[in-house]
């Protein structure tokens, strides 16, 4: 009997110890590369310093939705906070995979007292989604490949006579189809309307067919700067922050073409049943306050999602480069920008992705 007691005692102590240790740890899933680094510097390090909570980084955001689905289905959720695109967050929310978040209770108000729900850029907060940044996907090119000046418009990208060489595109239908339609002469504000019809979809794919032989595909955000640097591609679609970091940190001769950039938000969701809610809540309150969001912009050129953060955006860490002109939200860069339609892709994503994959492999 005594032995049994000792044994149970030990097991209980171990279990308790385990539980306590887990409270001191958060697993945060993100995109890796320069982007994860900006989060580590702006959020994770100061938070660990303040509270002692250890933060583990996993670079799995490219498969975030599939990952959360699998974890929730298996009843073994190991991710605490997941960095996710808004369209995916909407799906995860509809499917009950992530927590609904009472914004004003979970998030810090602005310094002047404005509640969070009114301080975030309009339309970016979702019922389950806390945006951090606005980022752009746009074309960039290696200036060495075009001594007489590079492409300036989407039509130029399609013009392989005038601008010969390989294009590196992201291997997803999102944004490629929109740009194809614009290159085909569709008005930017009609793009999604056209793309919702079968005829419009055929038109977009036909336009992509024109450059298919000149295309290689990328799937990770770190690839396009690499492909441009290797001259494996001369024009590439990319996330603006990755190109900016390659320009500044590696001195690459890259140029961003802001014409018809597509911007969208990226941010956090919290999977259900993490058993870690209090720590997560505390972390989010810390990480989404005005100053922290502005701090992230010191490390990567993505616009903060809070209005009160924008004036606080300063210079690139360790340099004299003013970050404001490099933000996708800078008015100069925003002239022909297209807002990415989250709802459209939540509805049509399945079918178009399937068709796109068939088209790529065919």
């Amino acid at each position, binding site marked *: 009997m005594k032995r049994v007691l000792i044994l149970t005692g030990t097991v209980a102590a171990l279990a308790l110890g385990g539980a306590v240790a887990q409270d001191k740890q958060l697993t945060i899933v993100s995109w890796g590369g320069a982007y994860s680094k900006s989060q580590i510097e702006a959020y994770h390090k100061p938070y660990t310093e303040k509270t002692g909570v250890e933060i583990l980084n996993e670079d799995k955001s*490219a498969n975030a939705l599939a990952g959360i689905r699998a974890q929730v289905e298996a009843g073994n959720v190991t991710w605490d906070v997941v960095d996710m695109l808004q369209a995916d967050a909407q799906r995860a929310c*509809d499917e009950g995979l992530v927590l609904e978040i009472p914004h004003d209770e979970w998030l810090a108000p602005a310094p002047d007292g404005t509640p969070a729900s009114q301080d975030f850029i309009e339309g970016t907060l979702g019922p389950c989604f806390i945006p951090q940044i606005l980022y752009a996907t746009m074309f960039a090119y290696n200036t060495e490949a075009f001594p007489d000046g590079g492409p300036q418009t989407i039509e130029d990208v399609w013009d392989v006579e005038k601008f010969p060489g390989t294009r590196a595109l992201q291997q997803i239908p999102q944004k490629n189809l929109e740009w194809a339609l614009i290159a085909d002469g569709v008005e930017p504000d009609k793009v999604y309307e056209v793309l*919702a019809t079968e005829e419009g979809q055929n038109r977009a794919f036909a336009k992509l067919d024109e450059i298919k032989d000149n295309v290689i595909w990328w799937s990770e955000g770190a690839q396009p700067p690499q492909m441009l640097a290797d001259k494996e591609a001369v024009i590439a679609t990319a996330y603006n922050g990755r190109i900016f970091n390659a320009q500044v940190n590696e001195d690459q001769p890259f140029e961003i073409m802001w014409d018809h950039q597509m911007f969208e938000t990226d941010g956090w969701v919290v999977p259900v049943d993490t058993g870690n809610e209090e720590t997560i809540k505390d972390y989010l309150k810390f990480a989404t306050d005005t100053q922290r969001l502005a701090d992230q912009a010191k490390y990567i050129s993505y616009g903060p999602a809070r209005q009160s953060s924008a004036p606080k955006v300063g210079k690139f860490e360790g340099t004299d480069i003013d970050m404001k002109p490099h933000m996708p939200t800078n008015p100069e860069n925003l002239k022909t920008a297209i807002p990415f339609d989250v709802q459209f892709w939540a*509805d049509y994503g399945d079918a178009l992705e399937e068709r796109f994959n068939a088209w790529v492999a065919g």
Partner: protein
Amino acid sequence: MASASKTPELLAADGTPLKHALRRSQAQERRRAFLLVAPLLVFLLIVFAVPILSMIWRSVYNPEIRGYLPQTAAALQQWEGADVPPEPVFQAMAADMIVGVENRTIGRAAARINREIPGARSTVMRTARQVDEWSAPYREKFLEADEDWANLEFWRILKRESRLLTPTYYLLAIDYEYNAQGEIAPRPEVYQVYKGLFFRTAWMSILITGLCVVLAYPISYMLATQPARVANLLLILVLLPFWTSLLVRTSAWIVLLQQQGVINELLVATGIIDGQGRLRMIYNRTGTIVAMTHILLPFMVLPLYSVMKTIPPSYLRAAKSLGAHPFRAWWRVYFPLTIPGLAAGCILVFILAIGYYITPALVGGDSGIFISNLIAQNMQGSSAQLKLAAALATILLVAVLLVYWVFNKLVGVDRLKFG
């Protein structure tokens, strides 16, 4: 037998019949042998059989509609499909939606329907968000809220997919689907990809196997006929790449073959091609074939070599001394003796090739990828279709088993020599 029964039974030392004693001791042996393999058996069951069975199960299991819209699924069984469903169906739908919104499971049902009808997700979600403010009769309100609710196809699909087991994913995996009338029909051409990819995977695997035979046969012959010192050195040259990591070898091919790579630079430097006309040897079919042939070559060399080593050179000399032409001697005497090694090499390389993933993913571009790459694609991304991936993987598994079975009929596993 009759005479045997007459002879007195042989007894063991303790008086039991010898037969029983033998059986008992054999049974003991067998139990001991079984205990020895038991850990492996348990291991295989846990990490091999169970996951494969659950994968096959997943590829036909279809619980979403039945699970998340149970009342609607039941109510639809009475519906013939000729006209917009009657009030009870809408009432059931409203009840399911209220529960679904509360448990936040309605999105899972909506996601399942959206797979069949793009755009249906927003219809379902939009209606679900307002349905708790309505009261009976529901039919009018649904039809008013969204004209999609009058779409017969929507209801037919809902009825069809409310069954618990579905062949839908297998149909998709061979480029077929249910059409609006509920008949099985080929998918629109723009979605057709899997059948073509199965064929491509098969013929490229056959081609790679063939290339391996052509390259490995002379190498193995040389290995087998050289003096031991030379042969061992050559063997190390074969084994060294075999021991090198797959990723390293694949990346080495990228360095060699890419447009700014070693070979292109050499060709440009020597003036064979100009800077604009650089060859595209990678991120396409060529890249996959070159890299995979290299990577799989040792799997052909080793069995061939081990078989050739056992063939005495005197056989060939004897054939020639009896007047055979050297080719005839080789063809009639030597070659048949190498068939077990050749067969082992072929089945090994072919089965490895057909399921290959990492090399085609890295160097295959879009024209050089295999079916396994599409299986992986279906397991990732935001619209991951695990069930379609499971169906594709099951088909691939069955194909491999079939190849193995045919091979066994033709050559026989007992003739295999793996070195």
